[in-house]
């Protein structure tokens, strides 16, 4: 097979996939010749430099960008420090990589610091993270000591002289102990779901949170009763990122050819790591029910099976559920295949995200942004994005998912309207520029320059 050239990269395809056992063709359907062992990018691409604010003008419009600059005027010269627990990997670091340059561009001088700690610290914070999202955990005095001691070391190492200090997530939360008697404002940005926290760990953390001036959550349902104002910042996507930017139709075709996806027939896709919370087996069951009535292919594009034993087990279950069905295309992709994911989403007729447990569900945001009619589980932050039958459809079961697949595939006008509404919903509420706006607003409100 020849190397594939993407729009922005020129890399050799080398690693081979092991998915698919494709032995049973359905004779009545014309189809492209499916490659038995699709291949993927072997190495991650070089990072793309973050965009400038003006790069978004074509997407969100001139007035929107002008409004951001007006909002920032009153904050000129103010300083912000963002603190989190990792510089690379994970959604928070990814968001800060985009957000910090944009805030600096509008002259809100923003600095980003990362806390340090030993393995014992990060083992404790990982356990806290899971416990705060509802897992069983026994909080020991030793874990408390490790948590507080490492935070104290970071407190002594990091300077906190800025006007606004933003602490991301629970790991560095006790840094608020460094707060001075000054107009300085401290903000806790909680990216995780606190709707059902382990009471011991939350009870331990809560006195620290009460010392902040404001807290930010990603969904109304994730918030707790606190004595400080709580704000709602939805997570967002960057429309200029590899995952979401406009791409050339030839590249979309190239990726489909590479992975054996037949564009002459409808394509339903779920993009998710192989995780039971995303119910990939349920999606396959829904596909099998729906296909009795309408012809289409199912693409299950995900990852996480290589370095996660549970992911590998789920992938095995998915393959087992798919059996030898040639119309189910399972792709275990490495995390740097953003452009390929983008292409698969754009090639799809419908996108599914049949999660049974979810944070916000940014794959739903990505699908809506691409104007795709989207079927998704009514869990976590998904109902914030999908207003049932207006910006997509919500489902609660395999049967419901199967029915909506059939319905949307046979009612293209309705599906098209959902897609258009979904894209407009994302443009208004879930883009990077909207988040810049939210940050500027919060800083103005907290500094009294409303």
């Amino acid at each position, binding site marked *: 097979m020849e190397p594939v050239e993407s729009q922005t990269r020129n890399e050799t395809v080398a690693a081979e996939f092991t998915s698919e056992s494709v032995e049973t063709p359905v004779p009545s359907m014309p189809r492209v010749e499916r490659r038995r062992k699709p291949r993927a990018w072997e190495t991650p691409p070089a990072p793309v430099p973050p965009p400038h604010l003006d790069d978004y003008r074509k997407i969100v*419009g*001139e*007035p*929107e960008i*002008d*409004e951001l600059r*007006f*909002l920032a005027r009153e904050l000129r010269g103010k300083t912000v420090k963002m603190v989190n627990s990792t510089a690379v990997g994970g959604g928070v670091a990814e968001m800060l990589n985009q957000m910090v340059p944009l805030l600096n561009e509008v002259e809100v001088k923003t600095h980003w610091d990362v806390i340090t700690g030993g393995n014992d610290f990060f083992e404790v914070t990982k356990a806290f993270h899971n416990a705060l999202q509802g897992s069983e955990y026994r909080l020991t005095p030793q874990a408390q000591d490790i948590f507080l001691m490492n935070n104290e070391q970071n407190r002594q190492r990091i300077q906190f002289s800025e006007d606004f200090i933003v602490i991301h997530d629970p790991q560095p939360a006790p840094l608020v102990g460094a707060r001075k008697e000054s107009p300085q404002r401290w903000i806790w940005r909680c990216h995780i779901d606190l709707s059902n926290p382990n009471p011991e760990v939350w009870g331990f953390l809560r006195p620290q949170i009460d010392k902040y001036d404001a807290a930010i*959550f990603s969904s*109304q*349902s994730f*918030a707790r*009763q606190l004595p400080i*104002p*709580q*704000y*709602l910042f939805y997570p967002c996507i960057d429309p200029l990122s590899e995952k979401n930017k406009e791409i050339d139709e030839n590249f979309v075709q190239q990726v489909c050819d590479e992975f054996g996806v037949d564009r002459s027939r409808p394509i339903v896709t779920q993009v998710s790591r192989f995780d039971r919370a995303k119910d990939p087996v349920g999606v396959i069951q829904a596909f099998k029910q729906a296909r009795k009535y309408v012809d289409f292919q199912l693409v299950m594009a995900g990852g996480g099976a290589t370095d996660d034993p549970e992911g590998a087990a789920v992938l095995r279950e998915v393959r087992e559920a798919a059996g030898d069905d040639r119309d189910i295309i399972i792709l275990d992709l490495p995390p740097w295949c953003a452009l390929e994911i983008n292409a698969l989403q754009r090639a799809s007729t419908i996108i599914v995200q049949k999660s049974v447990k979810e944070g916000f569900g940014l794959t739903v945001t990505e699908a809506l942004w691409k104007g795709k009619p989207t079927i998704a589980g*009514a869990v976590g932050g998904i*109902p914030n994005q999908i*207003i*049932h*039958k*207006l*910006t997509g459809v919500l489902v609660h079961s395999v049967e419901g998912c199967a029915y909506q697949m059939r319905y949307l595939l046979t009612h293209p006008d309705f599906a098209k309207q959902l897609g*258009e*509404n979904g894209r*407009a*919903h994302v443009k*208004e*509420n879930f883009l990077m520029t909207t988040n810049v*706006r*939210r940050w*500027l*607003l*919060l800083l*103005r*409100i907290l500094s009294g320059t*409303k």
Partner: protein
Amino acid sequence: MTTAAVTPIRPHTPVKAFYFNTSAHLLRITRQKAASMFEFLEALRECPDGSIFQHTFRTLQEHHFIREGFSNDFAQWALSACNEPGLAEALATVDVREFTAVGDLRARFIEIVEEFLTRNPAAVNRPARETFYFCASDIVVIPTNQVAHTLQEFAEGLRRVSVHSIQHHFIEARLRLKLMSNDFSQWLYEDLGLTEAARQLNRIDIYTVTLDDVKNQIIRIVERALV
């Protein structure tokens, strides 16, 4: 807006310029939430004015691209989480433009829910499929680059500003003005004497079209006044 006769000022030469502003809103999560119709009614009574504003006026902008089936968050919740289409219809037909004070708007919603629960006592404590979380808006008003010294410039300003500015001047303005009108109509009427154009703007139906459509209708009316 009153319709008393005034001596028209020379057309297209306003007494004062129109400064286009816009407003930005930050969502604050409040203490109120409702997992049943009873809790919903309690929360409607107790929530801050900012919550009523958010779930009616503001949500119109957040979902301004939807032409049908959506007018406020309360109606949407009654339909999707409580499966009460009759109540949803009653809540959805509350037109925010008939209210110049949030308190009156709140009273209307309370009245509708109370009437519904009186007729449907079984619905009082039935659990909703999803909890309704009351949020509130913190507002910052922002100037734009657009200023109109003439009707021509006004039309040009309308073309250039965002739908956020249209929402600010055309829909939310009545809470500031305490009048059944909007900033655009007020300016056209008071500063330009364009009574008919002002009246036509007030007749635009904001519920059956998108905010972009509303903006285009405003522009067309102003352009006709230019002729």
